Every structure is written in C-alpha cells, then in structure tokens.
C-alpha cells in the first residue's frame, strides 16, 4: 500500500487543464467503457447490423414490387436505401436509453456521481460511444445495399458527407433516447416508448412511399418530420439532386434536438439518481 492519505492543500482542487478539457477527457474514458461493454456483448449490435439488413431486404423484395412495380424494384432501392439509413439510425438510438436506464438501476452511476467529474460526463460519454454504432449502420446499409445493386451516383466527398450527416443526426437524436431512459422505470419501457416515437417518424415520412400518394393531413406531417428532411439530404448526397434545402432544415432540427433534449435529459438524470 502507498503513501498516507493526502489532506488539505496538498490535494488538487481543480481538474487538469480546465473544466471543458476535463469534460472531454472524462467523457472519452466513459465512452471507452461503453465500447468495452459492446465488445463483451456483440449481440447488442444486432439492431445496427442484422435488423437494417432485414428491413432493406423486406422492403426491396417483398414490398418493392407492389410499391414501384416489378420493373421498378431497382429504382426503388435507390430511393429506399438513403431512407433506410435514417430509419435504422433512429431505431439504433433506442439501445442508448435502455443501457443508461440499466446502468442507473444497477447503481454504477452512483460511483461516477461520487467522483469529481461533470454531471453530464456519463451521459456525454454514452452518447459519444454510439458513434461506432451509427457508423456500423452506415457501413452495413451501404455494403449490403451495394451487393443488392444500390449504386452511389455521386462522388466520394458526398458519400463521406452523407455518412457524417447520418452520424451527426444519430448523435442529436440519441438525446431523446437518453431523456426517455432517465424518465421511465425499466429498459423494456424505454424500448416501448421509443418505438412509439420512432415508428411514426420513420413510416410517416417519404422513406417508403412518395409523399404525394398520401392524404393531405398526413402530407403536412411528412413535411415537418425531421426524418423526411434527413432522407432528402441523404438522397441528394448519395444519388444526386438538390441538397441545400433539406440539409439546412435537417441541421436546424439537429440543433433543435440538442437545445431541447440535452437539458431535459440532464435534468431528468439529476432528479433520477
């Protein structure tokens, strides 16, 4: 055992390198913790690997013919895939809230909260770790899509931008999941509540069908739905077409999600634990 206990002025009272650097460092350490947990339970990645593939196969081969006509299946895949990307991101964010909910129940967060780290560090760390999951969604969707015949019709820089936008959106949308994870009692309930949110958003968009086939009231919803605009931007970046309009609205939504849900999540977290 080592030196005696440090008392009084010998002890540092402020984090190394200022509080923002400390938040980044602590969040990074906690993100690494989440990633280690992921590698221990690879089945936790099903929702960002197998599930997007199933949806892609199902909508292309099962419903694609009925929606776009038998000859239009390939063209349908071109439109569907950027949409699937958005849906899978939204679905992939659900696990974040579930995991955080489980952590709080187990008392792991009590330890973190008794340490001199920013209160938000455990949440920020968990959100950052999800970058890996969102990247997996993009890689799997684009990879399997290309085997099925999807062709990127733009350049490499647009593709990188498309992936970056997808991950960025996932990071912002994830805070909704964090908030729900802090509010409800069990991980199962997190999933239930998040499905109620994610399904209307992903299906009430033009991911699967053109908006002009819908009744007027539903079109109105589709036009404000952030998923519609994310998909619009992703389509522009991957298969060509106008990007700016959808991109600006998507970025606006992302900022809005952060402004609203980060404080809500932090408040719920402080109340909860």
């Amino acid at each position: 055992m080592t030196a005696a206990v440090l008392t009084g002025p010998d002890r540092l009272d402020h984090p190394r390198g200022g509080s923002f650097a400390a938040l980044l460092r602590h969040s990074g350490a906690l993100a690494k913790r989440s990633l280690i947990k992921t590698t221990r339970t690879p089945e936790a990645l099903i929702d960002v690997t197998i599930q997007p593939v199933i949806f892609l196969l199902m909508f292309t081969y099962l419903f694609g013919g009925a929606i776009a006509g038998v000859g239009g299946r390939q063209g349908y895949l071109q439109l569907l895939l950027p949409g699937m990307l958005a849906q899978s991101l939204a679905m992939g964010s659900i696990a974040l809230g579930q995991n955080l909910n489980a952590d709080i129940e187990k008392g792991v967060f009590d330890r973190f909260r008794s340490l001199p780290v920013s209160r938000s560090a455990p949440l920020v760390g968990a959100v950052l770790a999800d970058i890996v999951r969102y990247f997996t969604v993009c890689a799997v969707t684009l990879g399997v899509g290309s085997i099925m015949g999807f062709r990127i019709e733009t350049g490499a820089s647009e593709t990188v931008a498309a992936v970056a936008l997808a991950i960025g959106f996932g990071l912002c949308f994830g805070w909704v999941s964090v908030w729900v994870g802090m509010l409800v009692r069990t991980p199962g309930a997190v999933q239930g509540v998040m499905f109620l949110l994610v399904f209307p958003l992903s299906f009430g968009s033009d991911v699967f069908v053109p908006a002009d086939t819908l009744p007027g009231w539903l079109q109105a919803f589709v036009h404000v739905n952030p998923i519609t605009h994310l998909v619009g931007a992703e389509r522009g970046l991957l298969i060509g077409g106008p990007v700016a309009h959808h991109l600006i609205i998507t970025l606006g939504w992302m900022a809005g999600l952060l402004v609203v849900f980060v404080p809500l999540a932090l408040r719920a977290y402080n109340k909860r634990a």
Partner: protein
Amino acid sequence: MPALTRTLPLSTRELDDDGMRGARIVDDLVVRAEGLRKRFGNTQALDGVDLAMRRGTVLGVLGPNGAGKTTAVRVLATLLRPDEGTAFVAGIDVLREPQKVRRRIGLTGQYASVDEDLTGTQNLVLIGQLLDLTTRDARKRAVELLAWFDLTEAAGRPAKTYSGGMRRRLDLAASLVGHPEVIFLDEPTTGLDPAKREDMWGVVRNQVAQGSSVLLTTQYLEEADALADEIVVINHGKVIAQDTPDGLKRRVGGQTLRVRPADPGRLPDVLRILDAVAAPGMNAAPDGSAGSRPGAASVPVTGDLALDEVVPALRHAGIAVNELGLHLPSLDEVFHTLTGDHDDTIDKRSEALV
C-alpha cells in the same frame, strides 16, 4: 487478503481536558452534519439528523432497514441534496462545493456497483482516469490495489465472473483509488459470509491505520462493535443514541457469557465458576427464558477477558462443555431498549405540554 493485524482504535476519546474543547473539536471533525432533513413523498427519510466524526476514527451508523442510513450517506457523499440542514466533509461544505468534496471521499454503496462487463483492472483504471490521474498512474494504482485486495489473478477477467466476496473487494478497491480522506461504506458486509466479513473488517482497520476516516452503516451490532470508535443509532430518520460501543452496550445490557456443560449435572459447578466473572452486581443464572434450551448457564460480563478466567477454571474442574460463547445483545434488543427510552421521552414531553 492482507494480514489482518488488529489495529487498535485510535483512542482520542479521553482528550480535551485542557479547556480547548471547542476549538479542538471543530478542527478535528472530518464529518459534521447538522439538522439534515430529507423527504421522499410521504416518507421522512431524515428527520433532523446530526452526525459528527473525528479524523482518523470509524463512525458506525447503526439502524434497521429503512432507518435513513443510506439517505444520510448519500447526502454526505454529495449524491443527494437534503431539504434542510448543513453538512461538512473534510471541512468543506457539501452543498456549496460538492466537487471539492468528491476529490476527498470514496464511496462504496450498498450494492456492489462495479461494472460487470469490465475487468477488475478496467474498472479501477476508469475510476483513476475520472479522478484525473494520468492513464499510467491509473494503471499503477490499479495494479497496486488489485494486489492488495488479492485480486491480481482475476484482474483480467470481467467482474461478472467474480464471486460475491470478490466483487465487494473490487468495489471497495474502487472507492480507494483516490486515496480518500473520508471513506463512506454503506453496509459493506451485507450478504457476505462471516469469514469474508472479517476480511472486510481488516481492510477497514487498515485504512484507518493509514489515516483515513471511515463512516460505515451497518445492520449488525457486532460489526459496529468490532470497528467503530463511536456508534450512532438511527431509527425513523432520527438519531436515537450516540455513544461509544462500550457505552451503548452498557445501556442495552452488555455481553453475556453462556456455557452449556456436556453433563447437565455439572450445572451447579458451572454457575459457581461463572459467578466469579460476573459483571458488578450481577449473578450467573441457569437459562430459563422461553425459547432457550435448558441445561446452560449465562452470566452478564463486562468484557471478553472473562473467557480467559472461565476456560481454565472449567478445565481445572474437569467440566466438558458443548457450548461456550460470548453473546452481544442483538440489534433487536438494542432497539427495544433504545426506542423504549425514546418513547418515554416523547411521552414526558407531551405530558409537559399538557
């Protein structure tokens, strides 16, 4: 586990005859809480709790489930804001400067809060990094603590493969990463078998010997007696007694030495031997109370030295025994006695009001 050298409690109880009492005590208190109140819905978890712990000592917070022990620890460890009251830990206001407090405390909660998916090393390194150690120092500290807690072999395995006792040790190690001045242990031995419990006691004594101060909650009178320099008894969110272990035992009846001779016919001889070590004013008596098996004799004694006299005397008299042991009053008995007193005072107060 480290060698469990019995560290005598640092007895500072007899100090302060020099007229400097006030100044000395304030300087010396490493935990000081006054008037803590906390309500959850309809439950008044803390109803005006005062606590004081001197530097370098162990304070035992004793009470049944739901008494408010955990709530009190969570307030002192900055996890919970009280509705009312003040608390200072290591001389720092818990409510005003919680981050400063967090640099000086270690907390081990009631349920082992180690991360099951992380290995022993990863758990401790993470805590070190969150305490602003460099990664290299965090690793060094992890290796040191794992060795000290006899977990070196299991260091690379996920904590979910650990036994209950190993998890507790890892949990305790995690709370020591930052060389805390004050260690909070919330029921550190609940659910452990007796041997593991004594290992844990050794760890606590060792920490105190190195200069830490330990506040521990427990449901076991035996544990508080073994470790604490002072005991605070809490019930229904209120402190109902505060005393040294000996003082508390005096109030609730102290220890009993019980002997059951193999041959019931030797009971009169046993009674004579036990009488010789009886606490002042007490006598040995055959066990007759309801529920106890006849054929044994008990005597209230003042300390465990009585055993040193009784055992040779029994051997000398050629009495074989089936049972011989010291018994502390149970927590139930403590509460019965203390809450009895407590109710009396309430009654007196209400009479006075009438």
